[in-house]
């Protein structure tokens, strides 16, 4: 099985026309492409940073609100500036991008424009033909790019049914002392992504020099594509101090991908202050993080977990260091807190229970959680 093609798609700044790109994303996914979707109303800078970190083959931009000649060119220019000319740029914008525009855009380094009236099949076929062949690429000009490309190698070797060569991962030590690795898990719809993004906002503020890595997961089936959409909602995590990587589970159950452990190890050895890993929302029968790399685990729950009996089955409740009841503005939150509190008493471990409303700006609960995630004070960077 060949590794899936990874593409990043987005809509430019001050533009919310996302209907075309949503349809195209769906079509790409159906044809085995992994799409990292950055969403609408996105700055060129955020698109370029994301494309490099996600190490995609190409960027697909859908632009309708004008200024496309400048915007596409700006994306190409910034890619070049960051040494990533081998990431290609293509896109469309219905009738708003004319043939004349396309000529200018191609001169400035854009690969291809799809005009109004192109069939979905033709576009998908073109993308598969054009970006399907793995080109010979440089290892990357910047540390960020090198890291991104190593992660791709790890993922791809698993996709090809091989374990990556040992020397690809510098496992002299299992990880660097100073790096704190935090694992987030919890059922779908509990608000993990929002919570993490709110924590990033606080961490960046609290530690003005800290660098953070995020490894996020979305479900996918072997041989099919995936929509990796966390970036679109993580508005605070699009920052030069944050390295984010979105992974598809590629058929593995349990909320992580076959390549996760190696990727996590690599990230933990890459000099970040924090590494945050987020699982897919799954049933919580087992502990998804089986390795010693994770320093702290956070289970994020939705107050609407159903009957009390079900709590017994959630093994993660015994294993997590911190349990968060998010969406605690919901009616059931109080009951949920006390039921979970009782359930935790049985674990015989010291666990923290916190209630949050992550979607609320400046939520106190999230502040409290952030305090618990600090590194040892003496290790903090000044």
């Amino acid at each position, binding site marked *: 099985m060949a590794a899936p093609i990874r593409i990043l798609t987005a809509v430019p700044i001050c533009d919310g026309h996302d209907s075309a790109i949503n349809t195209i994303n769906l079509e790409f996914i159906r044809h085995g492409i992994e799409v990292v979707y950055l*969403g609408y*109303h996105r700055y060129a*800078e955020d698109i370029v940073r994301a494309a490099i970190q996600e190490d995609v083959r190409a960027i697909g931009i859908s632009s309708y*609100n004008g200024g496309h000649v*400048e915007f596409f060119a700006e994306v190409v220019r910034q890619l070049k500036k960051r040494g990533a000319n081998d990431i290609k740029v293509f896109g469309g914008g219905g009738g*708003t991008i004319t043939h004349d525009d396309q000529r200018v855009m191609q001169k400035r380094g854009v690969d291809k424009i799809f005009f*109004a*009236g192109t*069939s979905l099949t033709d576009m998908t076929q073109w993308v598969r033909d054009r970006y399907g062949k793995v080109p010979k690429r440089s290892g990357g000009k910047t540390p960020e790019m090198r890291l991104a490309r190593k992660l791709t190698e790890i993922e791809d070797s698993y996709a090809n049914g091989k374990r990556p060569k040992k020397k690809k991962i510098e496992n002299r030590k299992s990880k660097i002392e100073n790096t704190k690795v935090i694992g987030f898990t919890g059922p779908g719809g509990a608000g993990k992504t929002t919570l993490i993004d709110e924590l990033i906002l606080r961490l960046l503020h609290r530690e003005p020099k800290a660098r953070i890595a995020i490894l996020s997961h979305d479900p996918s089936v072997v041989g099919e594509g995936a929509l990796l959409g966390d970036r679109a909602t993580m508005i605070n995590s699009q920052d030069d101090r944050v390295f984010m990587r979105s992974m598809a589970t590629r058929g593995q159950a349990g909320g992580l991908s076959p390549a996760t452990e190696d990727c996590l190890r690599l990230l933990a050895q890459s000099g970040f202050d924090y590494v945050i890993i987020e699982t897919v929302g799954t049933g919580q029968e087992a502990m998804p993080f089986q390795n010693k790399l994770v320093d702290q685990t956070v289970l994020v729950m939705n107050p609407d977990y159903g009957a009390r009996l079900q709590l017994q089955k959630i093994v993660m409740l015994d294993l997590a260091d911190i349990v968060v009841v998010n969406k605690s503005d919901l009616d059931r939150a109080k009951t949920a807190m006390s039921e979970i509190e009782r359930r935790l008493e049985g674990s015989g471990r010291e666990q923290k229970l916190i209630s949050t409303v992550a979607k609320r700006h400046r939520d106190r609960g999230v502040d409290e959680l952030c305090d618990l995630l600090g590194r040892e004070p003496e290790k903090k960077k000044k």
Partner: protein
Amino acid sequence: MSKLGRVIEAVEKYNQHVLDEVKRARTEKRFGKQLLDRWDEIKRNIKVGRAPTGLELPRLALPEIDEPGEIARYLLGDGLPGEFPFLNGAYKEMYLEPLQETGSYAKNGHGKNGHGKNGETAVAKLQETEEPTRLFSGMGLPDDTNKRFHYLGAHQRSKRLSTAFDGPTLYGIDSDADGVFGKIGEGGVAVDTVEDMERLYAGFDMGAPSFSASMTISGPAPIIMAMYIAAAKRRFGDSVVPKLRGTIQADIFKEVQAQNETIFPVEASLRFLGDMMEWTTRNMPRWYPVSISGYHIGEAGSTPVQQAAYTLSNGFAYAEMMANCGMSADEFGPRLSFFLDCGLDVEYIALTRVSRRIWAIGMRDAFGAGARAQMFKVHTQTSGRSLIAAEFRNNLTRTAAELMLAYMNGTNSCHSNSADEPFTTPSEEWIRLSAHGQAILLDESGIFKHTMNMLSGSPGMKAVERAVEAAILEEFREIERLGGVLAAVENRYQRSQIQNAAHRYEQQIYDGTRPIIALNKYRDGAEEMPEVELVRTSRAKQQLQVDRLKKFKKKNAAKAGKALDKLAAVAETNENCFPALLEAAEVCSLGQISGRLQEVVGRFRPMV
């Protein structure tokens, strides 16, 4: 049960009530007689008008029924135009030309004189009413759009302007912000400050009864509203405020569902919206502070039923919100207005009619609203998405058919798209044709001006009405199951439904199940990308906007700081922020205000 649940119940109950009354009309003699008498009286009172050919026609057409049960079904189930449940129209006469006295007709016969004379009275009377044509426009800098407004309004009795803003403005960002150069003045007009607002409407008497402005903006709507008021005050003094007429879109739910221009978190957006609605309802009695819009839902690719269902349920959610603020349905109801899409799918035969009926029943029976608050007043825009690039002149025909459907549905005002829609902000050539299209339909043709109900109530239309209403109620039930509108929004329900429908629509085009002329049918010889005149904003102009803004900021720097501090302080409390916003709008730019408010309430977290 949320209010939407009550609405579902109310419509079901009302439909049952109609059936019961039909039965009663047939079995209870006295009731049957009452209905027959009423029917006779209605018919007796219908005035007779005359077409230019001399043909006499009733001003209102009714079904040919003389059986009490059917009369009950018609009067209760459909209602006469202007009567509950308003299926046939919000008002009694809609687009009818003023009555020409039949007396003088009888006297003058078909003679040339008589015609001329009556023609004159007709013109004199027409001047009192407003044309339903309202064309959406915005381009370049405020001065450019102002010029277009004057061009469009030159031949209209009433000045009904409809404003399109550019991308940065729609997102509450200043023209001098990093990364937006290139987008300034594209697809709409750039407005950064109160001075831009003055330029935009220069030369118009903003307080005149014949003037109304519509502003299509939602995310930063309260800020733009404040700037509009500030500009009007600068030009006409404080006393102009209660006279201001117009609409601001300000529909947050549909932004989250389809248009993607929310800039504050949903709850904060709703709070700012509520503050503005409360203030304008009290101080600007002729202003519509929210236009509950299905257009963007439809254009994002929803099915027509989804469009109507989400729009109506959003409307009921706003009504619930205002009721919770302590306002009565009769106070806020008349200030709500709607905006729908009209495409070529068969549902559009009756989509607006059915929407009007559901709204009326829901407002009356679930909210206890009186007659004025039951009326669904709607602006329609023909579908932009149905217009395609290949052989784009065909778009004229598409738009004409859609216009016909819109007026058949009794829309209160209408925008017709230009044929160059797929490519650019319309150039004068095509916008002129689109305006003329409406005039040809309403003034030149006899379809709508002589008789109300001219095209209402065919058996086919009735069949569509029944099917569409049932489908809308089914959508309501699903939203109710999810916990109501807000909960459904947060669960991405509407978004995912719309996206799936959009995908299906595109697939149907390319697998041929949806014939599109010159795209998948009769394609041979089609010019794929024709040459059209593009309306774009030059770099020099964009730079001018940036320079003007910088000058404004420099001039007002000291005052702006204070105004922003005050605004932020109020925003932290539960008080109404609109008065502080009005003060800030005098000296701050759009981006300064939205940026400061975002510090207090946060930024919107987009949904995929």
